[in-house]
């Protein structure tokens, strides 16, 4: 659950394109994998079969073995990926939207209004992220919706700061002054001038927020504050794998590798896009 400021990418040749491409490739692979959960295994991710408790990978019928309740690891992994990716993308979208709205409003109006909005942001920023997340989870229950809301509301501040900075830059541009001097309405300014010019930044920020959401979900669920047990996500799978670690290290290994690869993929994708668009 990192709240450090975004590092927008710098100029760099070579490896960049390859990494960006592999990021996109892995990302699309994950999407395909998680869009067709049942096509992969045909097994129910919550069905228990006591004959196969803690079966090792390669057991006939269970390619990746089974967990401590005899549930098929592969189908749990696939359905968990769907959940984690969905949460990550939703958190990315919502926190980028909230941040964009806040930052645009603050930078566009300026003056006292800007000061007040930025002070409010600082207050929100000074609250421990885990406090916001835990309280919202308690209030909203332990479902997917609650996780998305908790992480989005806890994680839009970095986006707002960047968007405000970009908005201030756009405000100084000649084309904006021209538009304003011919009497364009504020709404037109925002939708025809600010937003189109902010779009690349917003998209790159979105790509940086998605791994933040994935990481946030897995951290919450790993601590037992996120999704409740029968559901599977990368976080709950790591949690279960961690409990059975000395016996069956592979149960931890599968979701762990997926989390790290997904985070890397989004990071590389975001950076190479950022380099192209924002250079």
């Amino acid at each position, binding site marked *: *659950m*990192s*709240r*450090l*400021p975004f*590092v927008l990418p*710098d100029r*760099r*040749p*070579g*490896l960049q394109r390859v*990494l960006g491409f592999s990021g996109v490739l892995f990302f699309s692979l994950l999407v395909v994998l998680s869009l067709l959960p049942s096509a992969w295994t045909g097994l129910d991710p919550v069905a228990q079969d006591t004959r196969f408790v803690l079966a090792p990978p390669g057991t006939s019928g269970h390619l990746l073995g089974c967990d401590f309740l005899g549930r098929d690891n592969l189908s749990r992994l696939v359905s968990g990926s769907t959940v984690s990716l969905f949460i990550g993308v939703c958190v990315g979208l919502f926190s980028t939207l909230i941040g964009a709205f806040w930052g645009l409003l603050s930078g566009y109006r300026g003056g006292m209004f800007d000061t007040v909005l930025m*002070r409010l942001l*600082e*207050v*929100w920023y*000074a*609250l*421990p*992220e*885990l*406090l*916001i997340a*835990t*309280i919202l989870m*308690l*209030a909203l229950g332990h479902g997917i919706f609650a996780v998305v809301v908790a992480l989005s509301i806890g994680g839009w501040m970095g986006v707002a700061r960047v968007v405000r900075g970009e908005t201030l830059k756009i405000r100084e541009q000649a084309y904006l002054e021209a538009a304003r001097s011919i009497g364009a309405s504020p709404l037109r300014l925002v939708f025809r001038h600010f937003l189109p010019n902010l779009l690349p930044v917003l998209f790159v920020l979105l790509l940086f927020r998605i*791994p933040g959401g994935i*990481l946030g979900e*897995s*951290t919450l669920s*790993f*601590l037992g*504050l996120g999704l409740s047990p029968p559901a599977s996500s990368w976080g709950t799978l*790591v949690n279960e794998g*961690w409990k059975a*670690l*000395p016996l069956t*290290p592979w149960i*931890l290994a599968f979701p*762990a590798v997926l*989390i*790290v690869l997904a*985070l*890397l993929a989004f*990071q*590389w994708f975001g950076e190479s896009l950022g380099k192209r668009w924002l250079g």
Partner: protein
Amino acid sequence: MNRLVRRFFASILLVWAVFTLTFFLSRWAPGSPFQGERKLPPEIMRSILSYYHLDRPLSVQYWEALKKTATGDWGSSFKNPGIRVSDVIGQALPVSLTLGGVALLESLIVALVLGTWMALAREPVKGILRALSALEVALPSFLLAALLIDLFSVRLGLLPPALWNGWRSVLLPSFAMAIAPSGYLARLFATSLEETIRSPHYQAARGRGIRPFRLLLSHGWLLSLNAVVSILGPVSASFLTGSFVVESLFAIPGIGRVFVLSVTNRDYPLIMGTTLVYTMFLVGMTLLGDLIGEWIDPRVRAL
């Protein structure tokens, strides 16, 4: 001086705002500190609530809490009656500060070494180092902690897997906390150092024939350090939040564990206490980072 005084008052306002927000957020969350497994008879429940003034209107409770907190009386825990919040924090904070301090030190050392190497290296090596730092950032701390415990405690039996006894129990958790920030800081530092190296003053110093080591140290390094120092506040605060996760994993009696427990127990005085400590720490470290940053590079002040 004037500026410092202004910042100081702004910080107090910020702490007050956080206090207010935390107060209402924690009361808004469903549940109560006195809901146990057993259901208490209504008259006992009522007397407990009135003993803690929880039956009064929220605004009255808020004023009482604010007045008490401002005068330094942070009250006592609801869950464990008689134990003062200040005592709980006084016991837990040194643990977390030690852990966070060691982790910060480790990540700074790794970041500066890796960052310098990254900035000076040529392409194939540079790319590998970049990928390495990206991998560091992508490793969730809880995952790393789990792997470290399994490898060093369970399989090799070298270091204690949990609890807080002596320096040996600092190593694993601090390392688990340090890795991700070190990758992030290394990239930040490398970018800044590359920029400094390209700048005219550095090239001029190089042209004057200053020895490479001295050149790098006093003309490049010191100036680029600002990129790292300027986010010292959020970084060190993230070590305190990062410790929430790592402390629960290693069962370390630090402020993170106290915080998580207090929220799940709705132990209101303890929630307020830990949140305030966190906020004051964040504000204090941000101020310190800004001051050091100005001292290193007075140009920052003009902004």
